[in-house]
């Protein structure tokens, strides 16, 4: 185990692990509701919205000529990606609320539009401009290149998500079990659904920048799905989703270091292994 503590000595490794564990924490708590509400596609949709927002944000940063001034807070494309993901989340929630369309259809529409906008924006950026990040990293993540800026954003999001979910958990769980019963007991179910979408947008926007769009969607779904198979209560499912997310992050990050494999792939494959184990070993 010497090697493990040795690699913890690297600052980039500490940041990568801290970011990964915080993303796992937020995703496990939210993913439980996302999976139980049959919104598994939501993570994908919002992550692609974040991609579109990053594109528009990057184009804005380049256009207003502030890149050479350094990678300061206000020049980060996240300032566009976050509101863009929030608007998308509200848009999906609104379509779900006001029409008979299934959520997957609503998400699919926003998904396609976001990717189109993102690709359009990135295509307008001259190839010789140094954005401070690699566009490919937005898709597949570069958890080992987490800067202090991104880690701070993730930490702030984690505090917001944990505090908010902590205060509405009982009501949100009740409404997830049965919207109508919860409403007869005075739970504002519709409002809570919008809140859930907003929290998901925050988590996805700040995390996707680091872990990549593909891994982001996996984080929201795979640990919660595996946890569901081992749980008889929603609270137990949440706890297990967080535990599975964190453990697979640790294993994945360390494995990627030793095997020189892409971190995102290593984490997703570790999660998938746990999921398969859960399917095979689940209690009857």
């Amino acid at each position, binding site marked *: 185990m010497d090697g493990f503590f040795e690699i913890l000595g690297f600052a980039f490794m500490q940041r990568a692990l801290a970011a990964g564990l915080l993303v796992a924490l937020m995703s496990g708590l939210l993913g439980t509701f996302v999976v139980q509400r049959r919104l598994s596609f939501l993570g994908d949709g919002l992550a692609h919205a974040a991609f579109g927002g990053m594109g528009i944000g990057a184009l804005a940063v380049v256009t207003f000529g502030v890149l050479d001034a350094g990678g300061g807070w206000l020049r980060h494309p996240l300032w566009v990606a976050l509101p863009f993901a929030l608007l998308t989340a509200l848009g999906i929630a609104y379509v779900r609320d006001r029409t008979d369309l299934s959520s997957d259809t609503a998400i699919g529409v926003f998904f396609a539009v976001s990717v189109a906008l993102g690709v359009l924006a990135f295509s307008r950026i001259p190839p010789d401009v140094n954005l401070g990040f690699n566009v490919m990293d937005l898709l597949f993540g570069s958890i080992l290149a987490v800067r202090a800026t991104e880690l701070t954003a993730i930490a702030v999001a984690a505090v917001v998500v944990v505090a908010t979910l902590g205060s509405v958990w*009982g009501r949100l769980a009740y409404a*997830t079990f049965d919207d109508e019963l919860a409403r*007869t007991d005075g739970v504002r179910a519709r409002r809570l659904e919008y809140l859930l979408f907003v929290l998901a947008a925050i988590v996805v926007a700040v995390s996707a920048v680091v872990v990549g769009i593909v891994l982001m969607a996996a984080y929201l779904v795979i640990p919660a799905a595996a946890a*569901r198979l081992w749980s008889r209560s929603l609270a*137990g499912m949440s706890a297990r989703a967080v535990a599975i997310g964190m453990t697979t992050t640790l294993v994945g990050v360390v494995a990627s270091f030793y095997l020189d494999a892409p971190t995102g792939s290593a984490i997703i494959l570790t999660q998938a292994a746990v999921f398969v184990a859960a399917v095979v070993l689940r209690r009857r």
Partner: protein
Amino acid sequence: MVAARAATRAASPVPALHVHDVTVRFGDALVLDGVRFDLDPGHFLAIVGPNGAGKSTLVKVALGLITPQRGHAAIFGHDAGDAPERIGYVPQLKTFDRTFPATAVELVVSGIRRNWPVRVGQAERARAMAALGDVGAEALADRSLARLSGGELQRAFLARALVREPDLVLLDEPATGVDFLAEHDLYDLLERYQARRGATVAMVTHDLAAARFHASRVLVLNRRLHGYGLPEDVLCDACLQEAFGHVGHRHAVAL
């Protein structure tokens, strides 16, 4: 003075359920049309009517789940939706989300807390177990809801409704999926609960014989109110003919 006030109260108690001119439309469809009635506390009301008559809709108006286009409903003088702690609601057995991880005890505790439990405390568990015992379902306590049969689930929902000791029990076809013996137990249980708590019961049912036998008031509904009063007065052939378009099984027999 006090005696006078008490006398007035006795003469006109606050109705357990007050429905005034309730009119509900879904799009173009007029589902409830000017329904009005008062149910005094302590009664056992059976709400009958054909499929699609608006029975569930009426219950949802009383619960504050649906806001009528016209009129209003009140429960013990509170606007619909304002006194959830006084109502125990058993929903019509529907396609319940069987993937939700929960045990019967948690379901019952949600009826105590009006919230979903993160974990169930000792005292809550004892209360929930007593409620499950009352409906003959102690054995289901730690079973996963996903593994319960329709009738078992119905009992768990009934325990959930009664555990908060409501003054008004609203049930939407609670006998669906419950076998004959259990159906007898259900009426027996409700009547005992009613006697113990002085509670009011309002139940949607398709079982006219049960309505005649157990209810103290019957309401015949088919979009409009077609009859409201004593079972022997309301469950007459003419009223049922008007509401159902035919009278019970005689229609079939005549064929």
